[in-house]
């Protein structure tokens, strides 16, 4: 049951959360950040670090944000579990659920 990044991050990418993640499992896409669900250790440091309040524990995700749980997982379809975002750097693609494109 990992943490998940939702709408608030789209086209913001503040990145404060990255400095708090003890396992470097927050990866950068073109327009938002994504938490690797297989690498997240559920510590919750990112949740309170996000100035946009965009990060949720998946079991208590806010109404309307649920689609991000699957989208965060789908983002890693090709990457798998590289063992740290620093190792792969920013990606160019995104998985943003339909209707969550804020622009």
């Amino acid at each position, binding site marked *: 049951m990992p943490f998940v990044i939702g709408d608030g991050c789209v086209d913001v990418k503040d990145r404060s959360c990255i400095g708090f993640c*003890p396992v470097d499992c927050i990866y950068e896409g073109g327009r938002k950040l994504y938490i690797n669900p297989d690498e997240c250790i*559920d*510590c*919750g*440091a990112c949740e309170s670090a996000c100035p946009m309040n965009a990060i949720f524990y998946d079991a208590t995700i806010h109404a309307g944000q649920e689609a991000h749980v699957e989208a965060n997982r789908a983002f890693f379809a090709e990457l798998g579990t590289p063992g*740290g975002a620093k190792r792969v750097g920013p990606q160019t693609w995104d998985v943003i659920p339909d209707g969550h494109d804020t622009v």
Partner: protein
Amino acid sequence: MTPSEEGAADVGRHVAVIGAGPSGVYAAEDMATRLGWSVDVIDRLPTPYGLLRYGVAPDHMKMKSLARALERVFAHSNVRFFGNVEVGRDIRVEELRARYDAVIYAVGAPGHRRLGVPGEDLIGVQPATDLVAWYSGHPDAAAPPDLSAARSAVVIGAGNVALDVARLLAKSAHELLPTDVPGDVIEALERSALTDIHIVCRRGPADVKFTYKELAEMGELENADVVVHAGEYSLDSEGVMGAQATIIDLFRQWAERESGRRKSRTVHFHFGLRPERVNGTRGVEAITFGSAGGDQVIPVDLVVTAIGSFGRAMVDVDFDAGRGVIPHLDGRVQPPSPGLSGEYVVGWIKRGPSGVIGTNKADAINTVATVVADLEAAVDTVPHAVTRPFGEDEFGSAVLWDGWLGIDRAEIAGGAARGAARVKMATWDQLLASAGATRGDARS
């Protein structure tokens, strides 16, 4: 020139970090990988990882897996581990100041806050830190009172440590087999006759410091039901903001589903109860709580206080005894020692006991930024002292990284028999024998 001095000259700065817990290792990581400095991480235990190993609950295996990320820091050629070396016993801080470009204290908060009520020194009243140390296999831990005759336990506190302790007491021994809990601890918990475990919070359900994830685990136990005693408090989350609303909702769901106890143990949540005194002659027998509805007495065989950790003073280092931290400015110890290398703090000895593990990463990086600024400024004003880092053979009793790997292998092998990833070795003798070291307090 010894090999270690040669290495130090190659990479420039050499820093000592006192404490191999997450905050110390994050500081070491930033200095070694980003700045290319050499770092010696010194710990009084023969094992690295501090509270990740001895504080994070043993059944939180996913969190424990963070050790794999911290291990990568020690794999770096610029980072050395000196375990079983105690500052103040084996080496004085004065010598560290003279020998390194900077000294970073990452010693955590090993003490605890006291209740401050009569009877709290009776047998059977324990700080959570003692119980956590025991089930975590800390080599300095003492076994708690015999649980085979204990029916009722009270855990005082409204944070995740209270939940950890209550959950470990409530779990069946069977549920703990896949964890790293030492075998004798599992046996003691198997003999436990506890039927009721009370978590007592001073304030209401909207004020608790539990996090949702940890609280929700309490509803998933094989062996224990949850009962909520809301007292005068409402369990309606209407108008409550954010995460606290989901917590109140959880308490309400538990309160609504109470329909007779089905399991062998019950975890009770109480709110609005203020501990007033612990009653008993030699051992604890009951606790009296004050509440809005008058005094309440809970009969009890074991009392665990989980009301906060507290820093401990280091010999020859300034200490704020009121807050339990080393005074600092942006991570630089205050007041600075004139003419000597700078001293710095990270983690709980800097901030006090708050935040989750990841909080220490950002915090450590902030302190390292101060170290960098100070060393750069000092280059212009005072000649840079020649650092003389420790030789690896300087302490006859030190456990170096290879020694820890010996402990690691032995613990992993010890877990195989019961299907656990590892089982902790809980005595100094076992740890040091597996590390190929001996206990000693003299420099060689």
